């Protein structure tokens, strides 16, 4: 039994920390303001650190990172409040494009890929229905395509003979209509409509398995954010004075922080369990992590008072990213209900 990071994991963590150091709110805002919401130079830098290739198999020119390696990266990115959509545009395409000719340039950070899976009016359903592939052409509409405003290619779930299959579509093709819109964490998503667009595929990736992994990594990122919010709030309570003493001297705030601390520890443990027990129910664990992380986010805002509300501080950004992740591939309430029903 061992919960220490291994040497490589320590290196990945350090790489993320270096990559994010000095990225203040202004830098964050500047990146988000770019067309598509992604700073491509920074993205390439991220790729050069090997952090995208980590998700791809060694046969595919990647590093074949373990779940533990990937979770360390996700958690570190969360803790650093990174603005880059590593999970959405890094991990997911690197996994989904296994065996595809696009993978090399995606791993290199030259090509940006976005995953188009959500369909209007179908909530969290993973099976494709509205987007179909017929004779190598894709048609229909996806929404909530994270990073979709900046993407060069889309990995798309499509109904193919009654089943859901994965195809690749060139984002710049004339038959692809991209309407970007801003989402909660400050990123840009898109509604993407395919008008008989040429599709390459189907891809061989196991969609269900990749989504399970994405849930695990979303949970790890939430833990990282929650730890950061806890640490920042603790620091704030120790320094900020009100009514003639540091806020942290007030007993109700002390006890609240103990509750925050307890929940942060609990979700760290939950993610470790998901990592180390392959049969653990990922969606349910992610739901458990999300419910607690949202509560931690609310407390961080509340305890920061008015400043917690402002766009200037990282607190709100942390809460917003948590809220977005909490609903990625299913929200907590649905996932707990599914888990309960499956029992």
């Amino acid at each position: 039994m061992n919960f220490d990071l291994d040497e490589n994991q320590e290196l990945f963590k350090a790489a993320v920390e270096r990559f994010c150091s000095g990225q203040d709110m202004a830098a964050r805002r500047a990146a988000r303001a770019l067309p598509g919401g992604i700073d491509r130079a920074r993205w390439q830098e991220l790729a050069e650190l090997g952090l995208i290739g980590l998700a791809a198999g060694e046969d595919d020119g990647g590093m074949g990172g373990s779940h533990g390696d990937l979770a360390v990266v996700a958690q570190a990115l969360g803790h650093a409040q990174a603005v880059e959509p590593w999970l959405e545009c890094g991990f997911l395409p690197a996994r989904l494009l296994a065996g595809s000719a696009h993978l090399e340039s995606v791993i290199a950070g030259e090509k940006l890929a976005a995953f188009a899976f959500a369909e209007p009016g179908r909530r969290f359903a993973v099976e494709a229905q509205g987007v179909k592939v017929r004779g190598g052409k894709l048609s229909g509409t996806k929404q909530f395509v994270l990073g979709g405003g900046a993407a060069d290619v889309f990995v798309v779930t499509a109904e193919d003979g009654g089943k859901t299959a994965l195809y690749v579509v060139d984002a710049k093709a004339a038959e692809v209509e991209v309407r970007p819109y801003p989402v909660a964490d400050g990123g840009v998503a898109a509604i993407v409509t395919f008008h008989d667009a040429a599709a390459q595929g189907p891809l061989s990736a196991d969609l269900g398995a990749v989504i399970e992994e994405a849930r695990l990594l979303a949970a790890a990122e939430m833990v990282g954010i929650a730890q950061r919010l806890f640490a920042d709030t603790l620091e704030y309570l120790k320094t900020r004075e009100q009514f003639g003493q540091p806020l942290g001297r007030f007993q109700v705030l002390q006890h609240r922080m103990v509750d925050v601390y307890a929940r942060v520890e609990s979700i760290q443990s939950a993610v470790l369990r998901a990592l180390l027990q392959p049969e653990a129910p990922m969606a349910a664990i992610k739901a458990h992590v999300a419910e607690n992380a949202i509560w931690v986010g609310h407390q961080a805002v509340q305890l920061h008072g008015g400043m917690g509300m402002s766009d200037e501080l990282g607190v709100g950004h942390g809460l917003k990213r948590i809220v977005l992740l909490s609903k990625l591939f299913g929200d907590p309430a649905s996932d707990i209900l599914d888990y309960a029903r499956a029992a």
Partner: protein
Amino acid sequence: MDMDFAPEDLAFQKEVRAFLDDKLNARLREGAAGTPSVFTEPDITREWQAILAEKGWLATSWPVEDGGPGWTPTQKYIFEKECAIAGAPSLPILGLRLVGPVICHFGTPEQKARFLPRIISGEDYWCQGYSEPGAGSDLAAVKTRAERVGDKYVVNGSKIWTTHAHHANWIFALVRTDPSVQKQRGISFLLIPMEQPGVSVSPIVTMANDHEVNATFFDNAETPADNLIGEEGQGWTIAKFLLENERGGSCAAPALLAKLDRIERWAREEASGSGSGSGGTMIHDPNISQRLARLRLEAQAFEVTELRILAELAKGRPAGPQTSLVKLTSSNLRQQIDELAVDLFGYEGLQLPVTRPLYGNEAPEYVGSRAAQLSMPAYLNGRAYTIFGGSDEVQKTIIAKQVLGL
């Protein structure tokens, strides 16, 4: 015991409803519904304010002699309730509900004549300078200094969370006129014009991308000495009056219930494609529908609490201690309701527009529905309900001491 309005109140209710049917046009309703922050934008409120001013229903908390309609507490309640249900815009309460009553009560005849009509006409738009950077809910820690120099005050310092200061031409502020005496005693209540070189306003954008509050800086700002309300050093007393005036009858539950009704309607329309297997629409999701049910039961109980307070006021008796719970209860309920709306909309609830307004022709395109587009900014801005106007924590300490005697 009964919960019914008297016949004359029912008649008034009918009159209010007819008026709202007639005057509350679609643009106003859309503007009200399309504001995810606390205060409706001035382009909307000004129009609504003019309509109410013409009817004489604007300054509802002012004495008749100063332009109030002379309503009973029950009439005030009915008016607010019907406005909430009809989806009327909020009004610029900083002038109408805060500084207005203060001027009515403490102002000289000259001050009244000068300021009150311009509040009603909308010529003056007010903001409030209470909190200061680094002091949060601790109002007695006022540092902004106002020094008497001849027939004017020279003001230096800064205020924070000044709502709509970027729209306002006047600010009423708590300022320290005497730094030599004890905390509360050196504070005065001063009216300061905003349009002068000594006043600058710096926006504070919320995490929802709304610009509603500001930091306001005074750098040798000036105001004529006769813009002092009451005496020097009376500021704390006036601030308390203002707070208590605010804490009379309240009518927060009807808006909450109206919002729950809207959420229920949306839940009947919102397709369920989740893994939860409920199928059909979201109203059949046991978690969504039970949250809705619990919140409705809470809000309906809260409505009775407000009616219990009203019944006391209507009898001319002082409102009971329940009054202290109104802000606490309504802000927590509101946050839960706003969170439910976000959760209802799935991925569509995650859009967060960066431009404003979210009504009219300038509004950005929505994904799914306008209601979905509004849900996230409303939820995020709503986290402030338990912070501003005395955070939950400050409220609880006050209630524990003043009501429970702990």
